[in-house]
Structure formats: C-alpha cells, structure tokens
C-alpha cells in the first residue's frame, strides 16, 4: 500500500470510527467524496485484482470432493478448513492487531461445549434445543467470552498477552476437566452430531466439507474486507503505533477489544465445525496441546495474509495424518517437529514467506532475461 493510500485510509477511519468522535480528527481529509462512486471504484478495483489463479483455486476447492475420496474430503479437507478458520482468527489478531492470543482454541471450545450443552448429545446434561438455536446461542456466548478475554488481556503487550491468554486457556481446560454438572468432566460429551438440514445430513463427508468451505470462505472474505475497511486499517495503526493512534483520537483499547470480538466470532464458528467434525468434545479438545496447534498452524502458514491460516492448516493436517507412514512408530512426531523447525528457520513468515521469496527470485530472473532480450532495442 502506498503512503498516500495509507494516509487516506487512516483519515477515513478517523473520520468515521474515532472513539470518541473529535472535531480535529481529520484536518487533511479531502472534502467529502460521494460514497457511491467510491464503492464502484472499489468494486472495479477488486475485480481488477482477481486473477486466473484465484479463479483456479476457487474451482479447485469447489470440485475437490468430487476428485477426492470421502476420507480426504472429510478428514483432510473438512478438518483443515475448520482448523484454518480458528487459525484465521489468530492470524487476524496476531498479524493485523499485533496481539498473539493462545486462547483462540479455548474460544472455539467454549462454542463447541455450548453446542453440546444446549444441543443434543448422548449425555443427559444436554438440553436438546433445536440445532439452529443452540448454534446461535453458542456463537453469542463464545463471542462474549472472547470479548471478555480481550478486555482482560488488551492492556498487556507481547509476551504478557501470551501468558494471560495461556492462563485463561489452562483455567478453562481444568474447569472442563473437573466440572461434572455442566461440562461432563473428563469424559466430555459424546455423539454431538451435526444436524440434518433440509434432508442433507451434515455429518456426511461431502455436505460437511461444503459447510466448512462455506464458513471458511465467508470468514476469509470477511477478514479480507475488514483489513481494508477503516476498522482494519485503524487496527493496523494501533498495532504499529498505539500512542500515535491514541493521540490522533482513536480509542486504542476499544479497537483491540473489538478485534477480539471479531476473532472470537470466527473462532466460535470454527469451534462448532470442529465439534461436529469430531462428533464429540472433551477437555483434551481445549487442552494446551490444541491451543499450541493453532499457533503452529498460524505461524506455519504465515501471519501476513489471511490465506496463510488455511495453507498452514492443510500442511499441519497432512503432516499429522501421514507422518506416521513416513517413519515408523514412536518417532513420527520428529518429522512434524522437524518440518516446523525448518520452515520457521528458513522463513520467519511461514510458507507464505517462502512463496514470496521464490517469486521474488523468479521475478528477478525474469527481469534479467527480459533485459538481456531487449538489450538491443
């Protein structure tokens, strides 16, 4: 983004979203441009940006279940999309808000537990509400929980944010482990089945895949939109220089808590997909190992772009599923760890960073050859 664009966007954000609204927010803003032309311009701009590869990826993910076995559709495809959505919430918080929260899996588990408690399972604790009501209530509660986590942790920075979110996550894990009246303790809830909607059983691999794909695409485009919207731009400003943003009249804490709310919404949708995918939820689903898995996925893919979360999730799920075939028995975690180490070692920006490096090199080579071709001109 050019400096001019950045400035314009910042000012637009200050104009509309400054909390509290101040009269001096945007002295440099251009005299009000009509909203409609701006939107048209933006639409045309985004259309221009759609390239062949974007269409190809979209077609690929849409036809994937028809080319792959049910196993690949469900366990690799469905699981990657659900985990990717939870990781996306961390990418948004970490990459664009500068807040690395380990509690995203906890938020997802809260949503999963709420679906199990309000919806149906084999456990008598479940209230048996209709699935849509249970889902809505679960998302509301989990998002509220995420907002609460944000409210607690936004006043900290860096490692302290990690510590406080880790503490919240571990506290929730032990709560679920030892509370039998609400969370069914160590055993958790079994047979939390995905519903049958309009005659389509969402537990089947292909319907589940498309459900997960729909949620993932919605989440992805929502985040893509949001990071260009005034709120997202302001959030990135808060990430880069909170004091300056504060001086400009932005409510820094408010923006950060709001970011947690948005991330919580994504994570709770991902959590509901995960509980349907696993068909059960137990404290281990909210354990430290799973919390760190989400961090690994986000870092593995790269936090600089929303797609990184899904790239990371696919690689993570593939590794976790097939590493045991590459090397026998108890040593297979070595492969997983080794791959993570290599990627992080050679590319701090994850797989996306590797991709960018490769492209830069290719482009440099291409420019050189072009230069040598047209040298005579």
């Amino acid at each position, binding site marked *: 983004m050019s400096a001019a664009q950045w400035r314009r966007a910042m000012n637009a954000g200050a104009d509309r979203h400054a909390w509290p609204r101040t009269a001096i927010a945007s002295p440099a803003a251009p005299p009000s441009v009509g909203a409609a032309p701006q939107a048209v311009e933006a639409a045309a701009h985004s259309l221009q*940006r759609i*390239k062949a*590869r*974007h269409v*190809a*990826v979209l077609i*690929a*993910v849409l036809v*994937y279940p028809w*080319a*792959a*076995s*049910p*196993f*690949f559709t*469900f*366990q*690799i495809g469905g*699981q990657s999309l659900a985990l990717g959505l939870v990781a996306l919430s961390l990418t948004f918080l970490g990459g664009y808000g500068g807040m690395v929260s380990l509690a995203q899996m906890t938020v997802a588990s809260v949503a999963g537990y709420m679906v199990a408690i309000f919806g149906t399972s*084999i456990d008598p604790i479940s209230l048996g509400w209709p699935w849509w009501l249970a889902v809505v209530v679960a998302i509301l509660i989990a998002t509220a929980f995420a907002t609460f986590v944000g409210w607690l942790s936004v006043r900290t920075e860096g490692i302290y944010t990690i510590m406080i979110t880790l503490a919240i996550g571990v506290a929730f894990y*032990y709560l679920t*482990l*030892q509370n*039998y009246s609400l969370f069914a*303790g*160590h*055993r*958790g809830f*079994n*047979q939390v089945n995905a519903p049958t909607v309009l005659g389509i059983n969402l537990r089947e691999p292909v319907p589940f895949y498309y459900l997960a794909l729909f949620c993932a695409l919605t989440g992805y485009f929502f985040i893509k939109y949001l990071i260009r919207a005034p709120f997202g731009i302001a959030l990135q400003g808060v990430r880069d220089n909170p004091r300056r943003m504060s001086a400009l009249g932005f409510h820094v804490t408010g923006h950060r808590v709001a970011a947690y709310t948005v991330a919580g919404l994504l994570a709770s949708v991902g959590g509901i997909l995960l509980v349907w995918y*696993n*068909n*059960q939820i*137990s404290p*281990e*689903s909210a*354990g430290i*190992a799973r919390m760190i898995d989400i961090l690994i996925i986000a870092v593995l893919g*790269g936090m600089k*772009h929303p*797609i*990184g979360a*899904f*790239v990371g999730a*696919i*690689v993570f799920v*593939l590794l*976790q*599923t097939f590493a*045991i075939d590459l090397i*026998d*028995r*108890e040593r*297979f*975690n070595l492969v997983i760890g080794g791959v993570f180490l290599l990627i992080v070692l050679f590319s701090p920006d994850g*797989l*996306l960073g590797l*991709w*960018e490096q490769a*492209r830069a090199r290719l482009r440099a080579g291409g420019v050189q050859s072009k230069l040598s071709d047209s040298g005579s001109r």
Partner: protein
Amino acid sequence: MRPKAYVLGTLASTAVVALLAGGAHAQETIKIGLLATLEGPFAAGGQDGIRGAELALKLHNGMAGGKKIEFIKGSSDASPDKAVNATRKLVEQDKVDIMIGPLSGDEGIAVKNYSKTQPNITFINGSSGAQATTLVDPSPNFYRFHTDGAQWMVGLGDHALSKGFKRVFLVAEDYGFPYSQVQGFMAGYCAQGGHVVKKAWVPLGTKDYSSVISTIPADVDALVVVLGGADAVNFLTQYEQVGGNKPMIGGSITVDQTVLNYKGKRRESLLGTPSAGPMADSIDTAEWKKFVTDYKANFKDGFPSPSLFAYLYYVSTESALEGLDAVKGDLSGGQKSYRDALQKLVFKGPAGEVKIDENRNGIGNTYITEVAKKPDGEFYNKVVKVTENVTETLGLSKEEFTKMGLGSRDVPNCP
C-alpha cells in the same frame, strides 16, 4: 494473493494421492489396523501394547486363516478426537479389514461411536476399560475380549472384609477409570456390610495431598488408594510424613513397580497390601509362564515382565487372529461369518479363558494379589485368590446392576 496457487498445488497433490490410494488392494493379505498411544502420557504403555500385539502375530508366524497378516499402526495421545482421527485414517485411507485399539477409556467410547459408521469393518478393543463402551449404546461391530475397569476389582471388597477392614477411607483420581474401579470394589464391599466412610476425588497428577490427608477420619480400618503408581507414591510419602499408619488397599494400576520399589520408612508396612486386576505378574500357570518367556525372548528392550497393556493387546490380537483361523480368512459378506466366529470364540489365554457376552464384552478372571517379599528382599504382587468368570454386571443380576447404574463420584455409596 500469490499463495493461493500454493494451496492449489497442495490440493492437487492431495487429490492425486487420494486417487492413487483409492486403487485396488490385494486379497492375499489381511490388513489389521493397530491403534495405541505412542505419544502423550501413556506413550510407554502404548509401546508395550504394540509389543503385545506383535507377539501374538509372531507366535502365529505372521499368518491367520491361511493369509498373511499386515499391521498398519496408528497413534493417538490418549485424547478421544485424536483416537478417532487415527482410526478413521486406518479404516478409510489405509483400508484395513480389522481394527484393534484404542488404549484408554474415553478413547474407547469415541472409537465405539465411530465404529457404527463403518458397519463392514470389525473393531476389536485394544485395552480401554470404560464400562460405557459396551454397556451404554453398544455397537454391533465393536468387540472387547477382556474385562472392563470395574470387573478388574471384583472380589477385592470381599477380600478386604476378610482382612477385617470394615470401614475405609477412599482416595482416587477424578475421572472415568477410577470411577469404574471404585464401583468394582464397592459393589461387593457395600453388599457385604462394608462402609466407605468418605471419598476424596483428586485431579489426575495431584502432587500435594495434605488437604486430603487432613480429612482422613481416625476411626477407619484402611485406606483405599486408587491412584496411578507415581501419584500413589506421592500420597504414601506425605501420609507417612504426618504419621499415618493405616494399611492400604490398591487399585489395578496402583501397586506397580514404582510403589513396590518405595523406599520410605513404611516400606515394610506395604507387605500384605491387597489389590486386584485382570492379570498378575506371578500367576502360577504354564500359559502365563510361557507368555512371559515369549515376551522376554522377543523384546530385549521391553519391561522386565509384560505390562497390563501388553497383556491386553496380546489377548485382543490373539482373539482377532483366532477368529480369522476359524473362518479360514474369509471376510466376505460384510464379515458376517467372521463376527459369528468371534462371538463363539473361546480360548485359553495367558491369564485364563477368553470369551465374550452378548454385549461383546469380555468375561474373565480377576486376580486378587497381595504384596509379598521374595527371598532376595524384593517386593512383588503374590496371587492370593482368583475370582473366575466375572461378568460386566459384576456378579449382580442385570436388573440390580441397572438399578445401581454406572460408577461415578456418588455411585455406589455406603458411608
């Protein structure tokens, strides 16, 4: 935006792999999926479980029913979701015909639920001992050829009463397996007039037992300690420090090597500590001695003597192979004849006869042991009593058992 092409590449390659994997698979070999916890807290146990399964196959020369048997291994970290993921991979991707696993209780319930979606595959439990696996909503293609966690304690209550322990204090870990164990103990103990005066449920891995110890009433005869070995040693040490002197009664995984090697002042008082389980190191039969000799000969890196997990996986695998022998490797027709053969299967295992009931759960022996001293001063668990043909209803009628319900914090109760 560039990375999308990366995704495309990944997706394309997974699709290719999927297509390749979907190809034909030979009928000359029968694939058996083997799931154990090769990571996480039970990794050592999972490894020994695999040894037990491999021993069974080795003694069959790698063949059953005239066909070559191939193991494909899967791993979990003792969490239900990982167990189901690993099982799904073995069943749907590696196309195994028979599945053996998992290791721990809550995994067993989750895998049982998954087995319902794969009616053409036969699932045989590895070593998980949750009662709910076969008692609540059982699956027609899930078999457990050994007894569950409650059955492992049957007879211990009567034995405790015969030693004069009329009032006991209970300390146990707060999750499913100890609930089952305590129920197995209390079902007989309460019925015979014993009293469990107070129960203390502590979280798994508790280090500090002082608050529990301070609540032990003075007028109890013994302590029932259903803790894992390392937790039990912590408890014993702290109990000794405050001057406690009550005798102990142990669960199936309480009096293990860590407890037997206990070096505290009260070491001698451990002598005579009763516990119970589906096997014991010192069973005095030719079958058990052969099993131990075979285990030691085949696994130089194994334990000094096969663990509970090695024994249970051995029995499970042996059952799967004997069933295949009975039908000459014929798994056609949705494995119907194979399942009929499994249902009728009876054979002499290392620790007694192996057979199953109509819920496909094992009926078998429970061994009551007491800590005794070898001539060289080493402690071991000596078999003092065998309860034969223990059923899943713990010797009660079905109605009586249903009335009591599955073991939990408050069930059974006899203060």
